[in-house]
Structure formats: structure tokens, C-alpha cells
């Protein structure tokens, strides 16, 4: 060969260097290829719009694609919270303070984050420049279930201007939730938000005469603006209840009714943890059907002990403040235990829906501080088809976000002739904790029979399903049976099975 050795070596070295350079350039180009994205922008603008949403959470967990079903149920968290008040920049701030997580660090972190968020709002120029002396902040727990917590922050700037904000947490680690965390990974969020925005904004412009064309144009423009901001990641404020997700932006609120998109709702299942993250083992509200919003209660029991029996019992503060002292809470707890033990009979029933909404009120009577419990007991029974004729009707009413009779039981949605009822009032001395028993006047002979009837309640003997009558102990309970006689009679003229006490 005419090529000398040095030339050969040179060519080999040159080739190797060239190859190394080529590989380096290829690797660099493939990892830093910004030009490809230009192509996406030019050829397919829609895809870039999707990518603009900075809220997207990349989570490969299967739970992100698992939506809810209408048969699912949820548990309330085992945390407790109390509302407190403080001043910040001369503005009154009401906020919840949570406790009950086994990790004191997470407890503290969540409480700190709630307060930091409020402080940031009050320190912002937006607040300083747009608020007056009527301003205040009210942060409330919007939901507290499935190991997540949502706090809605209402900020009144002036009499004519207010805004909502939200802070939302997973309770296992105290980290903040994002909007996308509420939905399954594949949820068509833009479709959902657009449709919900249309409904929400239509309400803003609706008058008795309907919506004028000009207002319709405003609605379209508002939706466009809201979605544009959502797509660019600017919609970050939200809160949620078991029924509704609320998105906030610049004083506007969009309500998303979760039940309408249940297959895309992940928040009921996504952060449920098997590890025990709570101090207390008592479940206040367990196995509640999803999309059912429970009233703000002290104690909550929703139970389906068998397929055709449902028990719906709450004890709630009549004034809605839930500010009972330790002594008062002890009395309420004992009342709850006594009430719950009475439910054993009902648990063995078939084709029964039982509800008892017990209000508690602090009062003064004869110079004493007392607690008054008022039981509003309702029950409905049917021979067959309990699911369709009773349970589904009540469940549907419970899920109707626009029915406005909380905390009244939704059993009232049934025909009146299906409902039996009784009411009981009991009073307790707060100081001693003992029940105040009212003297019953000796009835006149002709009234005696009538009183016996009124104080008689019917209780089912579950072993043989016969109806027995039992007179209440008038020394401990003052029972007034508000059910008319006709209500206690079924179509065969027989007395229905009763579940009151």
C-alpha cells in the first residue's frame, strides 16, 4: 500500500475525533432541541395551549385516573377544629385552628399555612389599596374528609367588594393541594370548567326578564377570560365541599358541581391513607354517601347497617357556633352515647330509614345555665322496594346542592304519609351535668287516657316483628308524639313498625 503508516494513524485518529464530535453534537442536539417546540406552536397551537397549564400534576399513580362512583362513600376526618379570632393590621380575622393529627408538626404546619395565607392577603397592595374600615376576614372549614382539608377564606374589602381565597391540604403530610389534584388525570377539565363557568356567570347576569344579549356577550367574554387565565396557570385559588368545587379569580367564583362529573372526581379516594394519622380513633361521620354534604355538626352518624336500613343521626349546635365548653361537651358526649345505644334496635330493622337531628342549645333557666337537647325524630318504613321508594329519594335530595333545608333531615322529601315522627326535649344542668326532670302534673281522670296515648310510643319487637306498645318513663323523658294517628297506619290498616323511643 502506498499510504504510509503515519497517514494511516492520522486518518484513524481524525475519524475517531470526528465521530466523537458527531456523537457529542447529536446528544447535545437531542437534549437541547428547542426547535421542535416551535413546530408545535406553528402547526398545532392547541397543543401548546394545553401545555401552558402549569397546574398539571404529573403523577403516575393509578389513583389519579380512578374517578368516583355514585356507590362510593366517605369518612369525615378525625381532626377537630375551633374557630379563633385575632387582629391583623386592624382587621378582624376569624380562622380555624385544627388539632387531632398524630403528627404535631403537620398540625402546626397546616395551622401556620392557613395564617400565613391570610396574612399575605392582608399585607398585599390589593387589599391595602381597596379595603376600608368595614373589612374583615372569615376563614372557614369547607370540607374535612378523606384525609384532606379545605379552608375557604372570605375577605370583605368594602361593603361592595369581597373576594374568596382557599387553602387546601392533604393531611398525611400537610402539603397543599392544587386544582388538578381534585380531578382524575384524564379529566376534561377545560370542558368541565367552561360549562360550570357558563352556569355561574349566567347567574351573575340573570334578571327576572332573563339575560339580555349584551349580558350574554359579557358571559362569553368572562368565560373566555377565565379559561385563558386557567390555561396560563393563573387560577390557583379554590376550595371544595363534598359537593362543590369553587374556583376563584379576581372576585369571580365558578362552582363545579362534582356529582355532574363524578367519574372525573378523584379527591374522595386519592389521598386516603391506611396509616393512622389521627390521635383519636372515634369516627365522627363514617360511610357517608359521596356528594352528600353533612350539616355542620358536633356528632354525626350515617350508617347503613343492612341493605334496607339507614340511620341518619346528627347532634348539632342550634346556634351554629360549636363553642361548647369542656363541661358542656361532656354532657353532649354522654347524651350521644345514650342516643347511639338506643339505635341497636333500629340496626336490626329492615326497610327502615331513621333520622334524628338533635339540636343543642345553651340557655338560662331559673338562674341556671342549662343545655337543652331537642330531638326531631323521623322514620319511614315500607314493606318492599325500600331502595327506590325511600332510600334513593332521600339520597337524591341529600345530593341536591340547591335544596336549602340543612340541617333538617332530607327524609322530609318523602310523602308525608310515609313519615312517622316524634320529638323529645331534655334539659341538663351544665354545672352538675344532671338531667332536669320536670314535674308532670297529675292529670284529670278524663285527660288521663289522652295523655297515655300521647306518651305512648310504639316499638317493634324485632324477634317476632309484632308491634308492642310501651309507655315512656315520664320521669326521664318528656315525649310529645307529633305524628297523627293516620300516619301510623299503613294501607292494610295495621300500625307500621315503629322505631322511636
Amino acid at each position, binding site marked *: 500500500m502506498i499510504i504510509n503508516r503515519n497517514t494511516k494513524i492520522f*486518518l484513524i485518529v481524525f475519524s475517531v475525533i*470526528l465521530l466523537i464530535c*458527531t456523537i457529542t453534537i447529536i446528544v447535545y442536539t437531542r437534549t437541547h432541541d428547542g426547535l421542535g417546540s*416551535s413546530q408545535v406552536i*406553528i402547526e398545532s397551537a392547541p397543543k401548546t*395551549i394545553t401545555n401552558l397549564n402549569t397546574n398539571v400534576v404529573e403523577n403516575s399513580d393509578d389513583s389519579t385516573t380512578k374517578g368516583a362512583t355514585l356507590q362510593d362513600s366517605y369518612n369525615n376526618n378525625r381532626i377537630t377544629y375551633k374557630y379563633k379570632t385575632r387582629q391583623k393590621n386592624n382587621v378582624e380575622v376569624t380562622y380555624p385552628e385544627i388539632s387531632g393529627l398524630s403528627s404535631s408538626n403537620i398540625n402546626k404546619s397546616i395551622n401556620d399555612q392557613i395564617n400565613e395565607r391570610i396574612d399575605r392577603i392582608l399585607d398585599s397592595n390589593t387589599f391595602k389599596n381597596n379595603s376600608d374600615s368595614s373589612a374583615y376576614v372569615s376563614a372557614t372549614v369547607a370540607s374535612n374528609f378523606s384525609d384532606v382539608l379545605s379552608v375557604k377564606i372570605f375577605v370583605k374589602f368594602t361593603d361592595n367588594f369581597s373576594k374568596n381565597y382557599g387553602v387546601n391540604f392533604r393531611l398525611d403530610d400537610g402539603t397543599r393541594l392544587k386544582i388538578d389534584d381534585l380531578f382524575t388525570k*384524564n379529566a376534561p377539565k377545560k370542558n368541565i370548567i367552561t*360549562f360550570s363557568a357558563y352556569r355561574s356567570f349566567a347567574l351573575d347576569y340573570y334578571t327576572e326578564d332573563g339575560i339580555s344579549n349584551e349580558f350574554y356577550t359579557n358571559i*362569553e367574554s368572562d368565560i*373566555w377570560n377565565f379559561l385563558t387565565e386557567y390555561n396560563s396557570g393563573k387560577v390557583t385559588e379554590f376550595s371544595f365541599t363534598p359537593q362543590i368545587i369553587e374556583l376563584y379569580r379576581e372576585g369571580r367564583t365558578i362552582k363545579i358541581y362534582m356529582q355532574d362529573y363524578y367519574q372525573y372526581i378523584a379527591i374522595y379516594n386519592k389521598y386516603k391513607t391506611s396509616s393512622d394519622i389521627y390521635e383519636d380513633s372515634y369516627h365522627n361521620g363514617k360511610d357517608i354517601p359521596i356528594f352528600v354534604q353533612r350539616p355542620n355538626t358536633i356528632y354525626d352518624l350515617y350508617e347503613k347497617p343492612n341493605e334496607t336500613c339507614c340511620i341518619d343521626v346528627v347532634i348539632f349546635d342550634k346556634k351554629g357556633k360549636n363553642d361548647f365548653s369542656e363541661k358542656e361537651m361532656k354532657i353532649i358526649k354522654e347524651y350521644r352515647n345514650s342516643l347511639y345505644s338506643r339505635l341497636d334496635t333500629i340496626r336490626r330493622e329492615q326497610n327502615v330509614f331513621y333520622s334524628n337531628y338533635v339540636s343543642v342549645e345553651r340557655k338560662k333557666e331559673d338562674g341556671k345555665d342549662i343545655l337543652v337537647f331537642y330531638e326531631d325524630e323521623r322514620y319511614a318504613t315500607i314493606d318492599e322496594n325500600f331502595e327506590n321508594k325511600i332510600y334513593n329519594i332521600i339520597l337524591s335530595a341529600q345530593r341536591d346542592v340547591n335544596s336549602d333545608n340543612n340541617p333538617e333531615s332530607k327524609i322530609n322529601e318523602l310523602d308525608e304519609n310515609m313519615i312517622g315522627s316524634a320529638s323529645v326535649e331534655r334539659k341538663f344542668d351544665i354545672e352538675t351535668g344532671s338531667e332536669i326532670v320536670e314535674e308532670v302534673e297529675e292529670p284529670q281522670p278524663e285527660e288521663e287516657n289522652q295523655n297515655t296515648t300521647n306518651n305512648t310510643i310504639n316499638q317493634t319487637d324485632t324477634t317476632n316483628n309484632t308491634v308492642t306498645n310501651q309507655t315512656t318513663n315520664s320521669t326521664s323523658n318528656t315525649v310529645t308524639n307529633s305524628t297523627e294517628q293516620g300516619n301510623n297506619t299503613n294501607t292494610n290498616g295495621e300500625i307500621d313498625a315503629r322505631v322511636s323511643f
Partner: protein
Amino acid sequence: MKKIFSTLFPLIMMIIASIACAGIYMFFTNKFGQKDIQNNVNANQNVVKDDSSVVLSEEELPRLESSVSAKPLANAIVVDFTQNKNLSETVLDYSADDKGYEKLLNGQVDILIATEPSNEVLSLVQASGAELDMQLIAKEGFVFYVNSKNPVDSLEVSEIQQIYTGRISNWSQVGGKDEDIMPFQRVEGSTDQRQMISKVMKSLTLMSPPMYNFRDKVYGNINDVVATYDNSENAIGYSLSYQANIMYDSDDTTSDPIKFLKINNFEPNYDNIKNESYPFITNYYLVKLKNNNNEYIDAFTQAVFSDRGKRIIKEAGYIDN
């Protein structure tokens, strides 16, 4: 001869090695068959190099107005030429098309970015004695969409017209399932509805839109609100394509996305809109009054019509003219 060969051989080998490496590079970086993309990118890069130095201050901007539908376009132009992301919120006003034209005629703004004026606006223009100077800056498809589960992929223009006059009322009449068609409309006065009437229906009369009734805890019963597209399996809706992409999921990674229909078998994509084989196209104009002598109008107009302006329009998701 031997000497020449021994000199040239290494050189030839070096050239061959270089070409081989270039081929390897092209192969692994997937540069084959992407001439158009490369051209676009190069063009864009050149544009940036040519006039990226032009930055307009807030004072150098004419008073600007944009229709809501042209908002992203106007926003992109202002942001790029001012190099200020926040400025567009203060210097740009947005309104419905007709209102924008009214502001222009009243001298409240110098430049309007909007679709063509309605007949009502043209009458106003005539009555005022003013003359509009309209320059086409961008195009956009006016699109029809259905639920992705709907088997119908394409409709003829005449079929669209018959659906919206009520003559075709079942999807089976256009090759779909035996289901009633739910033909959603946009609200009267909106750009979309005006485009629907002027570009699609022309002299035909639209049927009454579906209405929506619901109950609200605070407001009570809400009746007869014009229903908005709900992406149900028998629904059909329409809007400007940019708007559709803002408001609806068309991405296959989401469940139940919308599907854009072909019209006369033409997809509403970049090429078909650019060459106007897709039949429904909305034009956006930069509009000014001919007798407006605001000193900053010309500089702004020249900037928008520069190569850099074209790049901005493309990147904003519109079709450059």
C-alpha cells in the same frame, strides 16, 4: 502520480468521513423530511435577528383596542413589541367587535384589531362620514366540533346549514348514530354568532337555540338561558378555533375530548386555512381611521406587518396572512 494519490487519498478519506458523520447526525437528529419546519424555524430566527431590536415604549403605542376574540393576538403583539408582559393589561382594551368599532369611530382608540365590521357598523361608518383603513393581519378557522365518540368526522357545508335550520335533525341523516342532534349555538352579538351567520348560514335563518333551565339555591329557578355546548354525545357546537382550544379539551389524553369536524373533507388545520381550502375562515384586521394622524400609528403598523410581526402572529396560534 503516486505522490498525488498519496496526498489526495487522506483528503478524500477525510471528506468521506465528514460526510458520513454529517449523515449520521442528520439521521439521529431526525432532520430528514423536515424541510418545511426547518424553513419556518430559520425564517423565524432570521426575523428575530433582523428586527428584534425594535422595542416600543408605552408612550410610543397608539391607543389600542381589540375584540375579545382577537385578545390573544393583540396581547401577543403588544407583549412582543414592548417586551413587557404586564403592559398589555393596561394599554389594551377588549370589547365586542361592534363596540370596538364604535370606539374607533368616536375617536376613543387609534387602532382596533377585530374581525370585519357588521352591517350595523358599516351603516354607522357611512353616517359618520369616516373612512376605515383595514389591513388583513391574520386568519383563523371557524370550526365545528362534536364529542369524540360521535362517528361523524366530516360534514358538507350544506349539511351544516340544514342542521342549523332544523332540516336535518338526526345524526343518522349524515352518517351517524340514530340520535337527535343537539345543535348548540353561541349567543347573539358574539363574534362567533356573527361569523356563523355571515360565513356559514348567509341568507338562511338559524333555528331557535336550545335553552337551559336550572335551579339555584340563591336565585331560585333560572329559566330560558341560551344553552352552551355541553359535549354530550349528540351535541354539535361551533366557535373560532382559538376559542375552542381555550375552552374545550381536544387533547386525546383527556377523556371525552371534543373532535373538530372536517368541512367538505378539509380539516381546519394550518395549511388548509392558509390556502383557504377549508371553507370557513375568519379574518382579523388592523383597523384605523384614514384621517387619524396619530404619529405612532405608522410605526406600530409597520412593526405588525414586519417579518417579526408575522412570527408573533404564528406563535400566538393564528394563521399569518
